[in-house]
C-alpha cells in the first residue's frame, strides 16, 4: 500500500470529524428540547388537562383552528368565548387564550416547531409570553 502514512492520517481525520458531530450532540448540543426517545417533548400546561379540541386534532390542525379564530374574531366580530373539552371558557386568541394555559412558548410551541423545522410567523407580531429567566438560561 502506497502512502500508508498519509492514508491513515486522512482516515483518522475523517473518523474524528464524523464522530465529533455525534459527540457534540451528546455533550454540548441542545438536548433540552428532546426526550431520550428522540421525540419532541412539549410541556403540557399544569392544571389544565383539556384543550379546546381533542389532542389529536390540536396536534395536527391547531394552525387551521388559529386561522379560523382569526377570521371569526376580526372579520365577523364573533368574539364570544369558546369552551374547552374540559368545560373551561377561553378567549379566541393566541396571546390571551392559548398562551393563558400554555404559559411558555419555548417549552411548548418551540419544542415541536424546532423538531419539525417549522418556522411559523405568528411571533413576528404576536407577543410570546415573558419567559422566566431560569428557563431561558436552561435553553
Amino acid at each position, binding site marked *: 500500500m502506497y502512502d500508508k502514512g498519509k492514508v491513515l492520517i486522512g482516515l483518522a481525520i475523517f473518523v474524528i470529524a464524523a464522530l465529533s458531530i455525534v459527540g457534540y450532540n451528546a455533550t454540548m448540543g441542545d438536548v433540552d428540547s428532546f426526550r431520550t426517545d428522540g421525540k419532541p417533548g412539549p410541556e403540557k400546561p399544569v392544571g389544565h388537562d383539556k384543550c379546546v379540541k381533542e389532542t389529536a386534532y390540536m396536534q395536527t390542525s391547531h394552525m387551521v383552528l388559529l386561522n379560523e379564530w*382569526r377570521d371569526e374574531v*376580526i*372579520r*365577523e*366580530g364573533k*368574539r364570544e368565548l369558546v369552551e374547552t373539552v374540559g368545560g373551561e371558557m377561553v378567549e379566541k386568541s393566541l*396571546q*390571551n387564550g392559548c398562551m393563558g394555559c400554555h404559559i411558555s412558548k419555548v417549552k411548548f410551541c418551540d419544542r415541536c416547531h424546532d423538531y419539525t423545522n417549522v418556522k411559523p410567523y405568528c411571533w*413576528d*407580531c*404576536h*407577543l410570546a*409570553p*415573558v419567559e422566566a429567566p431560569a428557563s431561558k438560561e436552561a435553553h
Partner: protein
Amino acid sequence: MDNTRRKFLKLAGLTAAAGVGTTLLGSKAMASGGGGHAAPAHGGHAEVAPTGTRYGIVIDTGKFHDNPGLAQKCQDVCHSYHNVPDFGNPKDEIKWIWTDKFANVFPEHSHYRRDERLLSMDIIAMCNHCDNPPYVKACPTQATFKNADGAVMMDFHRCIGCRFCMAACPYGARSFNWRSPRGVDKEGHPFIKKYNQRFPSRMRGVVEKCSLCSWRTKKGKDPLCVEEACKTASDAMIFGDLNDKNSKIAKLLSSKFTIQRKPALGTHPSIFYII
C-alpha cells in the same frame, strides 16, 4: 351626377334616422327592464339610509381645550395599549389618535380671522370610521374592511404594505411601519417603550390604524380614548350607535351643532366635533 348625389343623401339620411331610432328604442327597453332594480346612487352628499349598527364618536373640543393634556392622556392610553411604536421622528410617525390645530383638522373651513381660542386649540383627530370608506376599495388584499358595527378594521395578517390605503385616506389616519416596531433606535432605546402582553405588535411593512377598539365595543365597553377622556371631563367624548335613535350620541347630534372633517368628499365620517 345630381341624381346620384340626391340618392346618396336620401340613403344617408335614412340610415342616420334608423340608427337614432334603434338607439332610442334600445335605451327605452333597457330603462323599462332595469327600472325596478335601479339602486339609488350612493356617495355624493346625501346620507345613506341608516341600516344596522354604525358606531361613532362626538368629540367636544371645548372640554379638551379646558383640560390641557387630556388629549395627550387619551393618546398615551391608546398607544400604550395597542403597542404603537414611537419612531422618534414625525416622518415615520405611527398614530392611531393624535392632535392638530383647527386649520389642519378642518382645512376646508375658513380659518381666516377666527377667534384665538379656536386657532390655539389642539383638536383630537383619529380615524373617522367613514360609512363610505374610500380605502376599502383601494386595498388589493381586502386587509382593510368595514365590520358589522361600522368600524373600519385592519386585518394586519393580510396587509402586504402597498400603502394604497394611505393614499386613499383623506384624513391621514393610516401609518406605515417603515422599520420593525420591535427594533431599537440609534441609542438603543426600543421603539415600543413597554409592551402590552394582551395585544400584538405589528411587523415591518404593515399599515396600521385605529380599530375603534372593536375588541372592547363588542363587550359593551367604550373605546379606550373615550373612557380616558370621560374620566377627567364627563362627555368630552361620547361613543355610541349613530343609527339608534334612542342612543345618547344620536340625541346629542340632533340637538347640538356639530361638524365633520371634509364632509364634501362624500366619505360620511362617523366622528363629529362640537366646536
